[in-house]
């Protein structure tokens, strides 16, 4: 029997403490946040999910190629994905369709079972906000703020709006502040994240990753978009 997404949903409901779920719309650096969270010692990752083969560290960019591996994507081309995105090839089990029956391509429920068995904790991410109420036993992060200025054509002149989840006990997080070029703004946002998730801070590693991410957005906007 092929594994359905419902198997994973039930697993998350049964073991809510092993999962943190990031809810965000495309272009809002959800993968960057997922890398940042999973890089902390309280969380778990495998190098094979990092979309590069050189470094066993979610916060390091590959050196043999310019950027991370690209994936099938509905609205991002090669340039955007390879040069300015930091996509992972795991941690995104849900596709966006409401009628989704199966776990997303590339995902493997056995891996999730394994990490639950070993009591590892991971951050997952999804654009599917309809799942917010369902996973109310897990820590849920809803990304707020304005769209990040990344030079993506389809996001130009669009407002970033998410529904009001004030009745849900979600952690509303302004990703723009975390990805700020200003150190103090970054630090305040990062410390909030650290406190919310009980992380051991890795300020230098996270900051250097974000600075590199920011530079890549600027390079993309200036010369390649």
């Amino acid at each position, binding site marked *: 029997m092929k594994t359905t997404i419902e198997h994973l949903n039930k697993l998350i409901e049964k073991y809510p403490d092993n999962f943190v779920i990031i809810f965000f719309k495309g272009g809002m650096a959800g993968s960057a946040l997922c890398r940042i969270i999973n890089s902390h010692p309280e969380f778990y990752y495998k190098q094979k999910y990092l979309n590069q083969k050189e*470094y066993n560290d979610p916060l*390091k*960019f*590959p*050196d043999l190629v*310019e950027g991370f591996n690209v994936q099938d994507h509905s609205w991002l081309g090669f340039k955007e994905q390879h040069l300015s995105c930091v996509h992972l090839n795991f941690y995104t089990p849900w596709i966006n369709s409401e009628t989704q029956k199966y776990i997303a391509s590339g995902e493997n429920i056995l891996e999730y079972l394994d990490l639950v068995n070993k009591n590892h904790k991971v951050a997952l991410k999804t654009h599917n906000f309809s799942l917010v109420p369902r996973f109310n036993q897990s820590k849920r992060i809803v990304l707020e703020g304005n769209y990040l200025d990344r030079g993506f054509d389809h996001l130009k002149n669009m407002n970033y709006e998410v529904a009001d989840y004030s009745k849900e006990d979600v952690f509303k997080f302004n990703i723009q502040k975390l990805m700020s070029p200003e*150190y*103090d703004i970054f630090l305040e946002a990062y410390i909030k994240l650290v406190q919310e998730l009980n992380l051991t801070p*890795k*300020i*230098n*590693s996270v*900051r*250097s*990753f974000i*600075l*590199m991410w920011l*530079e890549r957005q600027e*390079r993309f906007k200036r010369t390649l978009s």
Partner: protein
Amino acid sequence: MSERQGRLSKANDWDNIVRVINKSPKNFCIIQTYSGFFGSTVYRAIVGSSTDYVWDQSMCGAVANEDLGPLEWPHTTEGYAIYERNNDVMYPYFKENHLATAHISIDMLEYTTAKKIISKIKQNKILLLKTHDMTPRDFKCKIVRIVGSIQNITNLNDSNSVFRDRDGVYIEPCHDNNFFNLDVEKFMSDDYDTYCNEYLKLCSFLELMPNINNVRQYILLLKDKINRYEKDIL
């Protein structure tokens, strides 16, 4: 750790050092850098670009007991271990020393001995050495000479900066065959392409496989720290 700028005092084990290095120049490389000219950053960039170079925990500059790679920042402290001036005399500027530098823990060429150098040699590895003396031409190994000016890299020239107050200092290139002149302003540039061109020239001279992203990531954080130091902490 000790560091001092100025001309080399050849009263130490100098002749033996020259003999050791020139006996097997392929196993050595020297960074010739004026103090404050990002010599440690260049050191880290070179060693972080190739496993052919000697690197161990004792060199990584960590304050705590961390075993850091050459392009890795400490995880348990803000910055690296501070430099002492000499003879256990501390610089009076802890903040800059700790927050805005990329210090490594190696003896400068002018303060080491041939015996110490030999103890660091590893088979089939290249030992990268560093000197603040900009004059010697005694060596047959490859020498990376950091040239130009740091005036436009930092705004610390008018400050009390110990490490970066180098107003008016301009290091001329050397055109000997075994020298590579690394333009420090280009290497530390805010502009990615400028950085990349200079770094690739360095890689070409030393026959390194470029690690463009990770070296850049390291430099960006160092510059972020220097900017914070200039703006907020000074």
